[in-house]
């Protein structure tokens, strides 16, 4: 009984496998040539749908940088059915003269002719074949409407391929270029590193299969990828990057049609908000026009950079492919150094603004009080004509000077004296306390430390002991002292906010860890609180106000009188034959400081005429920021 049933089972299995065999016979033997033809005439191709990169916006959300989509038209000569008709249809669609389209096609023919010059017939045949099946760009930046028209009527436009092109647009050209950054082509090393770090895999939406990723990789799909060069484009590169989608296109080589079989939608990247205020940034850029130098405006309380400009600047749009040789030369010009962010990457002698540090040091080390006075007769000592006050140039003298009018008149002799009393170690200590000689840890790349000279450094650098002359030089901000404009701005902010050293930043609300117990967010933009005696800063602030608002002040009468601003000018010697750097740094409003600023013009002459004159526009604009 049971054995008979086994036989039935055997019959059943033979039947099942027999059905498969019959089907295989029909598929492979009877229809084999049909399917082989099918396999040859159809190509299926995976295409990446590029994801839009996130926008970069100012503090109010106004876009500074965004991706735009444009479309290019390509021609595959082999697949053109009827050239005359194609020219007619295209010119109708593009609203141009048929002759214009025709001439584009003729250019292609010409290209082929040039390629085939002086070649053997067999080579020519090969070149022609290559040419026939390659894709050639014929029109750039066509509209979306035209592109979709062509896509939807692919049989009418056989031989024409539309390709989507994504382009990064910097809406205000060179505005804030050093903060925003630019996009650049990956080089070989960067490509390999990215490959090793699985960078491209992360750039694809999760639903894309591993094998598809390898197909794209193998095809070199990512070799043209751009990455952020400097600035926010670089530091937020991964955040800004979207995740690419895919589409599966099948093309019938005989019918010359194509259809989309499947699509995985891309995910656009995240938008980044800057602390920059677009309007103020424009004002700042205007002020620096045709000058070499930098301006930075920063919130004194939380370190938000409201504007940051470094000139000469560059237009990131021009660094997109194809990059003109002219642009390359400009970027590589070592004298102009447009790629250098001078605010953080330029180290300069500072001059008189450093006197604030000398003053704080003397007060804090209790070498003087605010009332301590010294007499200025134009010279530090009768024996040396070398250390003189700037008034000596005009055969004048300052007379009795205390802290306030010493700062107001920027009297060198006063600072020579208090500097001498305080000594290099005291001055150096307070310079460092206020952030000189160290990076501010701003969220931009390329920041310099600057240099606060001390005795060991001096010995190593000059093979000489540190003499009084060096102390005197340091106390008025000359000598080996090197600072970045940002350090000066940060120091001014610390003066304005009564001794808090902030960490400058251009990214708004980024990396702000929130405590989970409902407490207010930790303020990690406060670098440290400087331990100060109460009266020193208030005296200095009062003096800074007088610099601008009282006659005899070095920034008086420059159109700043009506503004609630306090500041200090500086004319930093750069050598005996070259013009000095002009500096003006300060804060506003005087009563309740909101922002600090630094204006620095390389070889700009006197601090008052070279830098402070630029201030009124900027301060007016900055005061408008809510």
């Amino acid at each position: 009984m049971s054995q008979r049933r086994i036989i039935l089972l055997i019959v059943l299995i033979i039947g099942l496998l027999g059905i498969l065999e019959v089907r295989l016979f029909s598929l492979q033997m009877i229809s084999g040539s049909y399917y082989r033809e099918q396999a040859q005439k159809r190509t299926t191709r995976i295409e990446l749908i590029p994801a839009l990169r996130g926008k970069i916006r100012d503090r109010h959300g106004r876009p500074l940088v965004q991706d735009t989509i444009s479309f290019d038209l390509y021609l595959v000569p082999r697949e053109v059915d009827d050239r005359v008709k194609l020219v007619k249809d295209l010119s109708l669609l593009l609203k141009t003269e048929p002759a214009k389209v025709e001439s584009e096609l003729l250019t292609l023919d010409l290209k082929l002719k040039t390629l085939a010059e002086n070649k053997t017939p067999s080579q020519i045949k090969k070149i022609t074949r290559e040419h026939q099946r390659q894709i050639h760009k014929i029109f750039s930046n066509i509209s979306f409407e035209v592109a979709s028209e062509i896509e939807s009527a692919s049989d009418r436009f056989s031989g024409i391929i539309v390709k989507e092109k994504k382009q990064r647009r910097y809406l205000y050209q060179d505005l804030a270029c050093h903060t925003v950054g630019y996009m650049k082509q990956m080089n070989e090393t960067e490509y390999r590193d990215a490959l090793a770090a699985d960078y491209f895999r992360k750039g694809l939406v999760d639903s894309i299969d591993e094998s598809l990723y390898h197909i794209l990789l193998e095809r070199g799909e990512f070799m043209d990828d751009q990455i952020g060069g400097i600035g926010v484009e670089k530091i937020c590169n991964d955040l800004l990057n979207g995740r690419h989608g895919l589409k599966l296109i099948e093309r019938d080589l005989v019918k010359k049609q194509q259809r989309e079989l499947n699509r995985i939608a891309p995910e656009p990247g995240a938008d980044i908000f800057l602390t920059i205020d677009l309007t103020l940034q424009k004002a700042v850029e205007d002020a620096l026009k045709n000058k070499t130098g930098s301006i930075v405006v920063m919130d004194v309380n939380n370190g938000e950079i409201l504007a940051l400009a470094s000139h000469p600047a560059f237009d990131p749009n021009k660094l997109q492919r194809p990059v003109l040789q002219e642009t390359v030369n400009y970027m590589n010009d070592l004298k102009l150094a447009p790629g250098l962010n001078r605010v953080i990457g330029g180290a300069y002698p500072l001059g008189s603004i450093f006197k604030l540090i000398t003053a704080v040091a003397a007060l804090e080390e209790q070498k003087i009080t605010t009332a301590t006075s010294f007499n200025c007769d134009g010279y530090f000592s009768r024996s040396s004509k070398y250390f003189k006050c700037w008034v000596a140039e005009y055969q004048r003298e300052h007379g009795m000077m205390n802290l306030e009018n010493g700062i107001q008149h920027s009297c060198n002799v006063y600072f020579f004296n208090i500097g001498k009393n305080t000594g290099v170690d005291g001055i150096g200590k307070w310079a460092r306390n206020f952030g000189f000689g160290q990076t501010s840890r701003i969220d931009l790349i390329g920041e310099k430390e600057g240099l606060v000279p001390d005795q060991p450094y001096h010995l190593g650098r000059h093979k000489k002991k540190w003499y009084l002359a060096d102390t005197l030089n340091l106390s008025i901000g000359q000598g080996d002292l090197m600072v970045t404009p940002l350090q000066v701005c940060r120091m001014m902010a610390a003066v304005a906010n009564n001794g808090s050293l902030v960490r400058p930043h251009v990214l708004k609300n980024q990396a702000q860890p929130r405590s989970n117990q409902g407490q207010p967010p930790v303020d990690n933009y406060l670098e440290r609180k400087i331990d100060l005696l109460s009266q020193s800063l208030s005296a200095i602030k009062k003096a800074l106000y007088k610099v601008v608002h009282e006659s005899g002040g070095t920034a008086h009468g420059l159109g700043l009188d009506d503004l609630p601003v306090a500041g200090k000018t500086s004319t930093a010697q750069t050598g005996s034959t070259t013009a000095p750097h002009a500096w003006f740094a300060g804060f506003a409003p005087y009563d309740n400081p909101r922002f600090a600023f630094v204006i620095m013009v390389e070889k700009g002459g006197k601090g008052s005429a070279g830098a402070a004159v630029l201030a009124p526009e900027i301060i007016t604009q900055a005061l408008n920021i809510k």
Partner: protein
Amino acid sequence: MSETIPVRLNWLLILPVFLLVLIGVLAIWSAGAPFTQRLISSSAETAGENIGSSPTAISVAAQIKNFLKIHVFKQLIFAVIGLVVFIFLLRINYYVIKDYSYLIYLFILGLLVLVIIIGRVTHGAQRWIPLGPFALQPSEFMKIAFVMALARFMMFKDNVKYMAYFIGPVLLTVIPMGLIFLQPNLGTTLIFLPTLIVMLFVAGARVKHILILIFTLLILFSSGYFFVLKEYQKDRIKAFVNPTRAPSSEGFQLIQSLVAVGSGGFIGRGWGSGESGATLFVPERHNDFVFTTISEEWGFLGSSFVLGLYLLFFLSALGSAYQTREPFGRLLISGLVTYLCVQTFINIGMTIGMAPITGIPLPFISYGGSSLLSSFIAAGLIVNVSLKQIPSFAQRDFE
């Protein structure tokens, strides 16, 4: 356990198994090989950019080759492990294993529950238990355990004498089915019912009873299609019914597969030369759709040879079932052969448009550790039963 290992191995059973595994490894290898060659040429052709020859592209190619070899390498490791288990199974009396049938069944059932609880999510389905570098797929082993439990239950003919007694086998079948369906793994679920029916039939249940059962199940499951199946599972069935009109990629997959198989012709395109491009977009090229690669590259000759090997294996196995007078062994073979055959039919059928596209692996051939290992275990059990026909063993017949 017997010390007298019989020397008369049934080579008609063993040879097909080894050949099928070997063919599988070759196919998995070749499923990777054309990958690299093809793409360099296609990129140069369509993009019109000469990137295929740049140094970076070559190193990337090397990486991909490396990546694909991993599949071959892993499959070889699984094959060796499978072989060890296979040999081990020959050394114990299957009749001893019989006594543990229910225990093994419960254990694997526990694993299935575990998969649902902790199983990691892959392709939207929970099927695996991660095990170091590998992942265990309990549903593969459930097929064997359920056949053993059914054989254990039905070895006494009285247990299927009345319709009411069917409740036992049906429960043994439906519980793992339900758990596997929850994963969700529609394909594997499909093979349980035919196996149950065949085993009831071989066990000697009345045909009338079996027909009533089939009818009842049909009603239950067709209503299940409308109320329980997920959209993508319905899509797959729809794609099977009408491939050209199906909206999803399933229909496309089938068309591409048909083109690939058909273009193989009589002698095929040669090993490692599959280039219809169809399988390029079928992610399961080395896996569920491995037969596409075989039939494209080795043509009608090759695919017929593979079918012949399966037929030889199934018939030799059933021959042993015919000869043995011991009902557990007979039922065991019938059940194992049925599930392997159903799996083979559905897998090959789906590549040539005769069965819905489901994630069922091709026994002995498809890439995958659990699948290969369970195939080896099934083969080991079948060979084991076939050994016991040697007269030195006591013959018990409960008929």
